[in-house]
């Protein structure tokens, strides 16, 4: 009887010791992880429009079936052109090569403002984030059209699946209280 008790207490002792060691290592790991981190803020994913090369993967790589990436229009940069690469002007010819920049879902709509200016509006329900219009606007226009991750649609995956396949490393974590990098009020120099 006495022998059994002895074995029991030894086992309890070892168990307590190992438990303490495990507990200390878990808490220690956590403490080290906090100490090593710049801040404990929450982060969300966002696209740097100046790094984006409009490869089109935003439309296909997002875990959501219709991507959380949408085209955003920085009106402050827009020239209000009569001709917008992404917008199919009624009656326009469609064999010039320019039609390759057209929005495939006709998500770009326009509104007449005054002669000769037009305001271009993105219908985000239709936009699939393919960046065709962005490519055209960056190459031939002011670059006012650009891609952004819409935070109300993004499920904020632990690892952005577009980000890990983005060829230009344009997607990174940004602080949740400044969740957008919209061109115009956010400029390249600021970040670097």
């Amino acid at each position, binding site marked *: 009887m006495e022998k059994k008790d002895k074995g029991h207490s030894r086992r309890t002792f070892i168990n307590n010791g190992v*438990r303490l060691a*495990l*507990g200390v290592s*878990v*808490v220690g*790991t*956590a403490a080290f*992880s*906090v100490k*090593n*981190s*710049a*801040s*404990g*803020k*929450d*982060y969300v994913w966002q696209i740097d429009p*100046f790094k984006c*090369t409009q*490869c089109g*993967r935003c439309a296909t790589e997002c*875990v*959501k*079936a219709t991507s959380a990436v949408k085209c*955003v229009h920085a*009106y*402050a*940069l*827009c*020239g*209000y*052109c*009569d*001709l917008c690469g992404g917008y199919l002007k009624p009656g326009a010819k469609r064999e010039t090569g320019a039609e390759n920049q057209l929005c495939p879902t006709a998500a770009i709509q326009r509104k007449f*403002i*005054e002669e*000769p*200016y037009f*305001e271009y509006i993105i219908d985000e329900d239709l936009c699939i984030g393919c960046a065709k219009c962005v490519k055209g606007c960056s190459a*031939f226009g*002011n670059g006012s059209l650009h891609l952004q991750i*819409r*935070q*109300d649609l*993004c*499920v*904020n*995956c*632990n*690892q952005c699946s577009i980000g*890990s*396949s983005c*060829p*230009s490393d344009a997607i990174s*974590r940004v602080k*949740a209280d400044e*969740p*957008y990098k*919209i061109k115009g009020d956010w400029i*390249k120099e600021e970040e670097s």
Partner: protein
Amino acid sequence: MLKKFPNLAFLLILFALLSGSLLQAQQRFPKPEFDSGYVQPDPTQPEPRAMALEYFDVLVLLAVLSLASWFAVKKRSRRGLLWLSVFSLIYFGFYRDGCICSIGAIQNVALSIFDPGYAISITALLFFVLPLLFALFFGRTFCAAACPLGVIQDLIIINPVSIPSWIRKTLGFIPVIYLALAVLFAATGSDFIICRYDPFVGIFRMNGPFLMIFLGVTFLLLGMFYARPYCRVFCPYGVLMGWMSKFSRRHLTITPSECIKCKLCEGSCPFDAIEIPVDKAYRNPEVSRKNLKKFILYIVLIPVLAVTGGWIGSKSHVFMSRVHPDVYLAELMISQPELREDEENLDIQAFLESGDTFAQLVEEAGVIRDKFRIGSMVMGGFIGLALGITLMNQVVFRRREDYEPHKGDCFSCGRCMDYCPVEKDR
């Protein structure tokens, strides 16, 4: 004035050629001055989920863990655990879309330790730490009622089959390898493989790529007969939970007081986690001598396995490092220089456009590969060590006269408690 700019197409092309990145901040077409009093709208910026709600998630987790531990250890209520688990499935699974979860948080912690540039969110850290601490005191109650991935599998168990011990133990080693790989890839900033191959997140979101949904449905179908396949054969967090739970202060018990060895609970566990008394085998001198010999052999083998593992690991670092996109790209461009001309290869084209020199890329890739050299060696050593300890545990017999749950493997689901006919001692 650029009123009708189709006429100026040649000018545009000229601009495009001249401007390059210099003019990016400037505008090709000047901002119009409107006469009609039109005011430019601002682009909308829908807010992300509020921070307060993230903290609320942690509170919910804490509440669920506390309740689950109370149900499992004190109240002994299978029904309580079941309903709590349904709540967790709905909240953490379907409402919170399965992200952030404790399993994936391993990677955030690993990355934050090895990359000072990465800041871990408090939410992710607490999701990693809290279940482990609870396991240290009450067993794997997280697995029973808080983990949406576990619960979704637990609820569809129909006809679980019992698997021979050696197959279970062999399959049970896969999570250790998975854990080691996940930490290696996260720490080197290569990839979050746990999240990439999370089988159920697509189901929680009811949306996702084909492979994800396919994997999820396959696991669920398999799970009807092999209970909780993901938890037992893959879950890397389960490895950590098992370690904690093995030394837990308290743990769910099958019987509320004295075990009468009625064997009623034997078949109740879908996970083969109930250990039967080993009294007789333990006392058989021949078996015991044989086991002692094996035990000594395995003890000697542990350092050998660890060193071998480390050696194999360090040999594999070149191969492993290819998971990192930069290393992959650098290797691709060295081995197939003709791909530089390939317009279809987006990765190479984007790199060429970025303005970085090839030498820079190769240098970066070299740095990452050096990290892998050490990382793979540690990983291999860890796997070897774990293998040695697993082997050693095969021949360690503790005197056990009662039916007890295996503290490491038991998910604390509480099914066995319902089968026990012993009334609680007052």
